């Protein structure tokens, strides 16, 4: 981004008076080509992204082909996953991925927004950076450490203290206590992991709203919370959804931590306390040891399914944002 012009203290574009005509000519011809180059540069960089996505999808599709041929449409409708008999189905894993991500978002969403608010709105400025820094350290912790913590601290805690309480809740979700390695534990651990992402993005969004907005609300006699609700939350809704989308992305793909606490049982059950398994976890667990082409292809097919699910959910989220934005614009 170096410029052909000038010393720092002159404002961009201004020219010393004497050669006015020359400089005008120079800057005029510089305008289009400089802009064109820049536009090309950034567009090219942006183009890398769909290119990557297409390449990955292609790779997954090619690798899954054998599996789709051998299993047929049944791959999408059966829970059965039997590497010995070479009979594969993705349903149980897809359920696990969706259910654990849903739990993660339900936990991280409200809490992340709440923390971002607490930090940006209700804290004295001098403490804000420290508070943000503290929560952001959560994002620095390796997935595998979260997994180990989940396995050695969270799961036993769930088994000993939380599950006995939850089984009293009527309904299909908490039917029977388990070992602590469960869908619920996995969802909660992932929720904690995506918290910093959700919080950091929300924080940026909230910070960008000029103080004058909040001040006007307060001047009209609102309480602190009402000022926040009107001046900050309402206009930030698309940004918050964006934060949740980023968080959801990470939740869907989280591998290491999930695989250590989810119980690794390819079986669909409404009981959240029962062990389950997820697409990413299955791939990570079995890829290393899968030596038969059929098994490897089935794992690639799981990756393909995950890719598709991610695309579908993103589309749905976008529709949601569009709907919210349209409702707001009256």
């Amino acid at each position: 981004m170096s410029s052909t012009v000038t010393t720092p203290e002159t404002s961009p574009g201004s020219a010393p008076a004497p050669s006015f005509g020359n400089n005008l000519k120079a800057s005029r011809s510089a305008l289009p080509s400089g802009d064109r180059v820049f536009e090309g540069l950034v567009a090219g960089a942006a183009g890398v992204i769909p290119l990557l996505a297409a390449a990955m999808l292609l790779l997954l599709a090619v690798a899954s082909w054998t599996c789709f041929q051998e299993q047929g449409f049944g791959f999408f409708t059966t829970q059965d996953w039997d590497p010995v008999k070479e009979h594969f189905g993705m349903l149980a894993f897809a359920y696990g991925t969706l259910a654990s991500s849903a739990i993660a978002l339900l936990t991280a969403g409200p809490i992340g927004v709440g923390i971002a608010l607490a930090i940006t709105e209700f804290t004295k400025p001098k403490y804000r950076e420290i508070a943000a820094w503290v929560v952001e350290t959560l994002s620095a912790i390796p997935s595998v450490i979260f997994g180990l913590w989940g396995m050695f601290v969270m799961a036993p805690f769930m088994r000993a203290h939380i599950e006995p309480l939850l089984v009293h809740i009527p309904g299909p979700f908490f039917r029977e206590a388990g070992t602590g390695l469960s869908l619920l534990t996995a969802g909660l651990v992932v929720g904690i992991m995506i918290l910093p992402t959700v919080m950091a993005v929300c924080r940026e969004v909230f910070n960008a709203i000029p103080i004058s907005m909040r001040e006007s609300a307060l001047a009209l006699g609102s309480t602190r919370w009402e000022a926040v609700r009107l001046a900050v939350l309402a206009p930030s809704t698309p940004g918050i959804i964006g934060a949740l989308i980023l968080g959801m992305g990470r939740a869907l793909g989280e591998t290491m931590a999930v695989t250590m606490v989810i119980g690794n049982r390819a079986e669909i059950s409404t009981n959240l306390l029962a062990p389950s398994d997820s697409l990413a976890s299955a791939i990570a667990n079995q890829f290393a040891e899968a030596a038969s082409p059929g098994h490897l292809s089935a794992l690639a097919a799981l990756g393909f399914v995950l890719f598709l699910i991610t695309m579908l959910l993103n589309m749905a989220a976008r529709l949601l944002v569009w709907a919210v934005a349209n409702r707001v614009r009256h």
Partner: protein
Amino acid sequence: MAENLFKVDVKRARIDRLMRGLCWAGLAVALVPLLSLLFMVITRGWHRLDLDFFMHLPRPVGIPGGGMSNALVGSIELVAIASVIGMPIGVLAGIFLAEYGDNRFAKTVRFYADVLSGVPSIVTGIFAYQLVVKPMHGFSGLAGGFALSLMMIPLIARITEEVVRLVPTGLREAALALGVPRWRSIVSVVVRTAMSGIATGLLLAATRVASETAPLLFTAFNNQFWPSGLNQPTASLTVQIFTYAISPYQEWQDVAWTGALVLLMMVLLASLASRLTVSKNRQIQL
């Protein structure tokens, strides 16, 4: 009349206190696992935090004094390679989305950026394996850095976009009104203003990939020794931690926890340094 007004105020005041309390409760809830984790990492990792850890290569069971010197440098190396590839592309893509982003192409880019950030890290690793490792017939630091950069790009692009978008239009218009070429106004004014937000995004992405394990398993592989070049298997903290943590030997597990502690410390320091050096010129009051 006056009492009615007062009643409404009390109710609103209660809601106000409740909601603010909930927000603080949220912070407390987030702190509990963080503190529990930190406690675990510190108490378990503390014993082996010695000079040997930083100076020595890994040693087998029964031989004391093993360390993760190569893994430490390896992790920095891999993140550096990833950053060199991923940061420019990510930031430029983010600028594109924010500044030139009202067309169908941009919508497609945005969509796929979100999709890519949801790809499990192991799939990214396998992709990088097919693209780099197989043709090269060998594992390498380059492949590992490449795999990590794939994870950085969508994240940086989206965060950069969000942040650059937030720069008030008035600023852009002011720059253009002065006769500044569009590209220059973006670079010198808009991006400059959004700098601290972009830096946050870069840091988030760097720390995120620094703590990844799965994409490195089949790209950088790991190395018990010093790599003789970027085209050789490279050790990393995360893979080494993972290998040791799931072993049955107390001495290896101790080193694994120390590795986790050191990784955490490195990231905290990077985060702190980044906050201190980037100037805070973002709150534009209009």
